[in-house]
């Protein structure tokens, strides 16, 4: 790759590409974005709800629920005389609620229950006697469970005798509850030395009655999230408690992914337009390598994506922009951007028409957004969330520190996968594939075969395909998150086996289809063995890389997805180093022998290899006691 040539092609791409974006487009696009910009704050402030008016309630003015129903946009107020079930779901007469026997009416009742709660809280805020209106103050803290008894007494400072201000005041309530509470107070103080313990004296701090509105307002959520993650606590009224769901950060993180979808639209068009009417031929015959061309044509879009990410990151922290934090966000978004571009590039190389490219682009958008977004939802739950780089953005937005190991674990697989996409695409960036209507399977074989020249390259390609395997498997694991264990382990094993066996053999088959290898049984076994060795070595290197500074939960997942090389219950150390090697060599050799014959033999051989692999994994997993 020659940087000067690459930059020149990049300049052409920006200035005089056949499909360059002209000024008119930019103006119209900016106007459209402006419309979005105007509509979004309006939607946010006026509270446009998609579910407005879906439940119809017949209610009289006198009913205590009248204001509740009227103020909640989800309900539509109707005539109480209307036909129950046909025209209304609920009929409310004073305090009596009549519901139609439909699921819709049941949902309406549940909704009414939560709106009554919200309405009461709103009403109570108007009360003059705030301690009677909000008689319960809550502080919520999070403590890690270590399952070790000793830690309890020493950890979290529970022994510190906190202010026992509450003890004597039970009778001040001036009601029936006071006496009962008094008794309880007695027993409580007898037993516990520090009633208020638990280390966080947040009750008094949050209990200041005058800031209820602040706590309940919009800032409550953000502070809550940040507070919980900082190891602190939330406090306020019961309604202020919210589960640790990083909703706000997720929405913000989505901002980073959204522009990528527009960028790949333009990028895909550029790439596919090279293939129209042999336009790309001029560049192909120029004294530049295909990597210069691809790199040069990709660079402007990558720069654009990174630039937009930087602007968004800076805008999010606007009052006090911290360059380091912006840098972390940008660094985390870069692999996602490369992944989007790489997948689109490969799609544009394969697409037979514009329409097909549109479908491919939508697929890329949907699947990669899912990949980036869904694991990030579980940011607070476990380290598995780190398979998406967006988790790093979310954590960064929450002000958490990110370790180097987490960074590597999160960024390297998508980066390598993007590399595989570009590498495969580059394999068919040539006249025979670009300007002809070759069928998709043939093109796929071309793309793989372009990288295969001998037994050593077979091993290398297998190793290079590993990140792809790794990401596919991890996405599979993430998708199986919610399935019960009994089902998820076998399903996971099937996913793993299918992905790995194809990764080990597909390019071997492609090589045979292109006559890259000698025919015959023995050469096929050798090629297969090299593929197996490549896989084994790649897996070991990746496992080593991941073991550095990774939470145990993730490592466990990795071991489960891999060939269980780390299961300690197999006694002989050499045994569990050599067993997977033997497995990979044998299965890859079986598929290679099949691949050397013809397509049908290949498919049959792969199925046999999968069966062997599955049996092996299943045995190891059951011995390992998963």
């Amino acid at each position, binding site marked *: 790759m020659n940087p000067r040539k690459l930059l020149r092609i990049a300049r052409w791409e920006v200035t005089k590409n056949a499909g360059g974006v002209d000024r008119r487009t930019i103006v119209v696009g900016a106007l459209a974005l402006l419309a979005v910009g105007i509509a979004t704050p309006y939607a946010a402030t006026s509270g446009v709800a998609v579910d407005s008016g879906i439940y119809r309630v017949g209610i009289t003015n006198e009913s205590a629920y009248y204001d509740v129903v009227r103020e909640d946009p989800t309900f*539509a107020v109707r005539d109480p005389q209307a036909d129950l079930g046909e025209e209304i779901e609920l009929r409310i007469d004073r305090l009596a609620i009549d519901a139609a026997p439909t699921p819709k009416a049941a949902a309406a009742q*549940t909704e009414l229950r939560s709106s009554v709660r919200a309405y009461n809280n709103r009403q109570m805020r108007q009360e003059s006697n705030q301690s009677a209106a909000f008689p319960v103050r809550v502080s919520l803290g999070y403590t890690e469970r270590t399952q070790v008894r000793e830690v309890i007494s020493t950890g979290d400072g529970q022994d510190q005798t906190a202010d026992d201000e509450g003890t004597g005041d039970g009778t001040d309530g001036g009601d029936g509850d006071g006496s009962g509470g008094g008794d309880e107070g007695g027993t409580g103080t007898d037993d516990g030395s520090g009633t208020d313990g638990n280390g966080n004296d947040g009750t008094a701090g949050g209990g200041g009655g005058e800031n209820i509105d602040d706590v309940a307002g919009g800032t409550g959520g953000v502070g809550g999230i940040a507070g919980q993650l900082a190891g602190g606590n939330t406090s306020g009224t019961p309604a202020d408690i919210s589960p640790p769901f990083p909703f706000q950060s997720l929405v913000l993180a989505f901002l980073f992914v959204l522009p990528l979808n527009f960028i790949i639209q333009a990028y895909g068009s550029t790439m596919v337009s090279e293939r129209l009417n042999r336009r790309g031929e001029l560049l192909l015959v120029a004294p530049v390598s295909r990597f210069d061309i691809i790199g040069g044509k990709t660079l402007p879009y990558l720069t654009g994506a990174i630039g937009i990410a930087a602007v968004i990151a800076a805008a999010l922290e606007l009052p006090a922009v911290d360059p380091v934090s912006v840098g972390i966000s940008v660094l985390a978004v870069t692999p996602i951007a490369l992944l989007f571009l790489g997948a689109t590039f490969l799609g544009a190389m394969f697409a037979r028409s514009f329409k097909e490219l549109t479908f491919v682009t939508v697929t890329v958008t949907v699947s990669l957004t899912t990949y980036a977004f869904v694991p990030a939802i579980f940011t607070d739950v476990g380290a598995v969330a780190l398979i998406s780089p967006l988790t790093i953005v979310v954590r960064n937005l929450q002000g958490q520190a990110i370790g180097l190991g987490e960074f590597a674990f999160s960024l390297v697989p998508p980066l390598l996968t993007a590399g595989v996409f570009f590498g495969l695409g580059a394999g068919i960036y040539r006249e025979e594939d670009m300007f002809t209507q070759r069928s998709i399977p043939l093109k796929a074989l071309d793309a793989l075969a372009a990288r295969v020249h001998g037994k050593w390259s077979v091993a290398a390609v297998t190793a290079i395909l590993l990140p792809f395997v790794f990401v596919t498997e991890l996405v599979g694991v993430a998708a199986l998150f919610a399935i019960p264990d009994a089902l998820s382990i076998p399903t996971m094993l099937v996913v793993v086996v299918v992905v790995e066996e194809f990764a080990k053999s597909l390019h071997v088959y492609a090589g045979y289809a292109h006559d890259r290898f000698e025919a015959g049984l023995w050469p096929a076994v050798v090629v297969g063995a090299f593929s197996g060795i490549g896989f084994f070595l790649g897996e070991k290197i990746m496992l080593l890389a991941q073991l550095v500074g990774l939470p145990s939960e993730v490592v466990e997942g990795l071991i489960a997805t891999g060939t269980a090389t780390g299961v300690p219950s197999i006694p002989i150390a050499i045994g569990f180093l050599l067993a997977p090697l033997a497995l990979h060599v044998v299965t890859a050799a079986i598929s290679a022998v099949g691949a050397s014959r013809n397509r049908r033999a290949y498919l049959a051989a792969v199925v046999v290899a999968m069966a062997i692999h599955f049996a092996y994994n299943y045995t190891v997993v059951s011995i390992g006691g998963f």
Partner: protein
Amino acid sequence: MVSDPRVAIARRDLASLSREKTIVLALLIQLFVAAFSSFLVVGLTSLYDPGASAQGEVDIGVTGEANESLLRAIEDTEGAEAVQYRSNATAFEGFQNGAVDAVMIATRQPDSRISVQATAPEGSIRTTLVVVQLREVLQTLERQQRDIRAAFLDDPPVPLPGEVSASPYFGFTYTILLPLLLFLPPFISGSVAVDAITEEIERGTLDLLRVAPVDLVDIVDGKAAAMAVLAPVQALMWIVLLSFNGITVSNVPLLLVTVGAMAAIVVVVGVTLGLVMGERKSAQLLYSIGVLALFASAVFLPEHPATTVAKLAVDSATTTTYVLVVVYVAVAVGLYGLARRYTRGLDVESL
């Protein structure tokens, strides 16, 4: 009988779609989106809804001098079970060895309030569920305490209606899933319409079509019609699929008319953009930004199209809903007329 050239062109475009089998890909994407969003909601609901998962019961360790009130609140809350501890230390011991999922310490404060210190496990999948249950308990406690203190309140709180078992996915199905499934096909149709026009222009095959005895208007009409028809067909498929899953969708004909109108609007926008821009890159870019802008600015309507669809499907339609459907159809027809006039005045040689 002479067949209409527009029908021939529409048929040709649809045939090319089915030959490439890419329409299958499009359907798969939609299925994936639907499955995934449902999976996500089901998964997320099971994270916080005790009824949705098997291990729903949350055990709460209770201590502190005001634990009597707290115990009463837990008793009144479904899915929560109280374990009384005599001291904080034993409660936290129970918390640490997994006997209880959470600890609540209730104390009385000088201003007669009850202060509750709740502790939930950190970084566990159950945390969300536990916290939601704690909130449930605390809200019950708050209500009970308010009732006790009713004499000190100017207005007593509105009584809380009883709990009923309802599907937690009901609202999601009609207000998110269905609009998503019904609006995705028009969006893709419009995008493909952009391709249908720009591909002919960029490949130079529009000239070949021009040699045939058809008008440019007919060509554009045929291509637009092919794409616009696809969307309601897909929508109908989704509605049928949903009803297989026991989700009844009302007002199906009106929903299809709405989807058809939406598809017509975006397809006309796409085709016009294709003709104006003449190349895919700018046209697609503007199309996707433009549709996003259209969808976002729909919030200024008295009812967002997503709400219109939801209200029609759940059978809560109002006059506004019906009027808006008519408006969408009128806008679609009007835009089509404008686009047709623009196309007629277009000089083909300039494309």
